[in-house]
């Protein structure tokens, strides 16, 4: 309940932040504010063909086609655009020069009141003659020309090197405060660099975790995902960061599309790796195919946008499912993916350019935190397993130091030394055998059955001399390749000796049956009438716990162990998988 509330609260904050950030970003990129307003030259008159006189302010262009600047058609010729600019309401301080920005895929020449003020590449009537111009240009209008009143802007364009037919060839023409337009571009750049540093840092950290932490796939995927996102950010920001001539625009669009596809697919892959489920493989395949099919969509923005929508929402649903299963670390991951999903819903059209990288940073930090927690949990679990193994090893070795065992053995040994030294020597040999095998096997999680049986027989040989009762272990049904945790039958044998009836020779039997990938061991020994199954300090109480802990160490929960009394016999049955996990 509390966790849900926290999640919702964080999500709301992130959603609002994303919205605010988007709004701010839009404001800055679309309308750079300066000492005076920026004028977007949206409507122009257009004519195909070429005539230098078309630059003159007095030329009568009323018969030219009136179009929006975004709708300039793709034609294999020179295109002229003309529009008046009204500066009569603009009080321009002398220290703030006037600027004209041209964004589009064309070689261009810009004329202000008939005087050329800018040139990007060289427009020409043939592909060979044209030299491509930069996609973004900013020209200063000479102060002498930037006077109050109405001015004429004429643009001479050609675009033979686009290599595809874009929906929009000219993206925008603006007139305004030169410093403000330039500043807006710089701000976009800094935001991109800020996000980039976050992504690269996360990537390096995740890569370090991959190399330091047993090369787990989650860390590697997070590292490559961050790297892909960083590359996507660079590709997206290349225009504001470095600029390029318009003939390279296609290269950038293709790069952006491929990188978006990589980010989308890796996002789903990471979710699948971090929160495994049997549907992981089909979902992954489906994501790869559908996002790849998005490349067939008509517009570049649509291709990338659709890929991102599919990737983010599959990852989101996957993380929600993981969170419902209470998968470790899923709540943190859900917060991160939800933030991206909310951002995507909030402003789908401009998301890839603005909010995406900020929110990806949030997501990756969430994933990283969840991953760090996961690693810590893993490490704790592993050290707990190691500690348990060490305890089991110690417990097995400590048996030989139990006062009851050790002191009675030494007392019996003293008696044999005085009464019959030859028996004493044999007894010392048997003790040495048992100790030697124990120290050899105690640290293993499983040992060969022959070693376990040798250990049992060495113990019985020693107890025969200590108690003056003949003990025998009869085995049957063993294939000879069985593996068992060390000391489990030794524990049963010890218990059998402790609770054996008096006087008679004692035969203990151990039978093994392998069937359908399982080995069933049946242990039977004669038992005194009053012997309990869970009596005393060194018998079944700690003995049962020892056997169970050893079985768990070797096979997790895939084993059974039961004990019962059958008349004057004590029966113990253990079933384990025939194969030992690597």
């Amino acid at each position, binding site marked *: 309940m509390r966790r849900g509330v926290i999640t919702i609260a964080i999500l709301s904050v992130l959603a609002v932040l994303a919205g605010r950030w988007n709004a701010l970003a839009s404001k800055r990129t679309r309308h750079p504010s300066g000492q005076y307003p920026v004028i977007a030259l949206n409507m122009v008159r257009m004519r195909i063909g070429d005539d230098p006189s078309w630059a003159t302010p007095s030329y009568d262009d009323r018969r030219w086609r009136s179009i929006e600047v975004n709708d300039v058609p793709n034609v294999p010729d020179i295109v002229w655009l003309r529009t008046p600019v009204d500066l009569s309401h603009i009080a321009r301080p002398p220290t703030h020069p006037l600027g004209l920005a041209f964004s589009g895929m064309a070689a261009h020449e810009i004329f202000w009141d008939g005087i050329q003020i800018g040139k990007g590449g060289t427009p020409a009537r043939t592909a060979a003659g044209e030299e491509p111009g930069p996609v973004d240009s900013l020209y200063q209008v000479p102060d002498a020309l930037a006077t109050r009143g109405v001015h004429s802007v004429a643009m001479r364009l050609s675009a033979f090197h686009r290599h595809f037919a874009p929906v929009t060839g000219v993206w925008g023409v603006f007139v305004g405060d030169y410093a403000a337009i330039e500043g807006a571009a710089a701000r976009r750049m800094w935001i991109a660099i800020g996000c980039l540093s976050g992504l690269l840092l996360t990537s390096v950290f995740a890569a370090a975790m991959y190399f330091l932490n047993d090369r787990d796939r989650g860390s590697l995927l997070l590292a490559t995902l961050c790297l892909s996102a960083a590359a996507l950010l660079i590709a997206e920001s290349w225009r504001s960061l470095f600029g390029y001539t318009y003939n390279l625009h296609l290269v950038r669009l293709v790069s952006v599309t491929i990188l978006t596809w990589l980010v989308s697919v890796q996002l789903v892959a990471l979710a699948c790796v971090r929160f495994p489920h049997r549907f992981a493989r089909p979902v992954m395949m489906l994501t790869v195919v559908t996002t790849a099919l998005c490349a067939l969509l008509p517009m570049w923005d649509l291709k990338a946008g659709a890929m991102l929508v599919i990737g983010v929402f599959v990852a989101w649903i996957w993380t929600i499912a993981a969170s419902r299963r209470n998968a470790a670390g899923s709540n943190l991951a859900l917060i991160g993916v939800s933030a991206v999903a909310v951002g995507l819903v909030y402003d789908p059209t401009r998301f890839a350019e603005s909010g995406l990288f900020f929110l990806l940073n949030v997501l990756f930090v969430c994933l990283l935190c969840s991953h760090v927690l996961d690693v810590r949990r893993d490490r704790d679990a592993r050290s707990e397993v190691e500690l348990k193994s060490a305890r089991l090893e110690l417990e097995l070795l400590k048996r030989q130091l139990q*006062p*009851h*065992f*050790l*002191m*009675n053995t*030494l*007392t*019996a*040994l*003293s*008696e*044999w030394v005085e*009464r019959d030294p030859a028996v004493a020597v044999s007894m010392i040999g048997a003790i040495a055998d048992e100790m030697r095998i124990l120290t050899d096997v105690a640290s293993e999680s499983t040992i060969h059955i022959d070693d376990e049986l040798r250990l049992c027989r060495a113990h019985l040989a020693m107890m025969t*001399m*200590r*108690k*003056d*009762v003949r003990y025998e272990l009869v085995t049957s049904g063993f294939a000879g390749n069985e593996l068992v945790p060390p000391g489990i039958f030794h524990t049963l044998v010890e218990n059998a000796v*402790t*609770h054996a009836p*008096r006087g008679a020779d004692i035969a203990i039997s151990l039978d093994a049956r392998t069937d359908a990938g399982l080995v069933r061991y049946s242990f039977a020994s004669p038992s*005194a009438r*009053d*012997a309990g199954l869970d*009596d*005393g*300090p*060194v*018998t079944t109480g700690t003995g049962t716990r020892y056997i169970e802990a050893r079985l768990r160490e070797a096979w997790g929960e895939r084993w059974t162990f039961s004990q019962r009394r059958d008349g004057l016999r004590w029966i113990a049955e253990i079933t384990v998988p025939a194969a030992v996990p690597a």
Partner: protein
Amino acid sequence: MDCGDHRACGGARLRIAIVEDEAIVAQRLERMIRSLAGSDIESVTRAETLDEALEVTAGGAIDLLFLDLNLGGRNGFRLLDAAVASRFQTIVVSAHHEQALRAFEFGVTDFIAKPFTAERLRKALDRAFGRTSLQPGRTRCLAVRKGAETRVIPIDRVTYISGADDFSELHLDDGSAHLHQKTLAQLAEMLPDSFVRIHRSFIVNLTGARGMGGTTLVLADGRALPVGRTYRESLRAKMGFSSP
């Protein structure tokens, strides 16, 4: 064996029981006891289980019990309760030396840690038959039989002990009295210094005594007990009075 002030002195021969589930250890004990006590022994009985042991000791027809505290892996203090409430002396033979303190608190005669030598066993036998004194002051409780049950009484609750034929009677601070199977002489050996013999028939816990009045000792509850002539001087010294 030399003559002590116990059964062996009176010419009667010792009846010994060994409760031990390790055959070779039991054999060792019997072999050593026979070689040390020899002709003083009337019988040595061996028991391997708790039930058998209880059967042997319940008869009471023994003088000395050698008791292993861990039979078949079980804790033997239950057996010890019953043993120390009996007339016979108990010597614990155990692999768990850490149990010694608790055993002495129960009033056992000696505690032999395994493994043991003949020399150690001889010392225990000497102690049992009074040739060397026990280490007094270690007994912290006395066990008394009430029907089939054994009740353990902390000794600081005992105000005085009176002798009654072959038994003793423990008088507690709440006014109750309990029969104990040991004689006053046997108890005097076991109890700490605060318990002083004041009469042929009385041992008093001096921590609860109010003062001396002529030939009597007055207890906290006002009860006056006679002080025997032979005990008078030593009692005065212990109470901090000078001789008249």
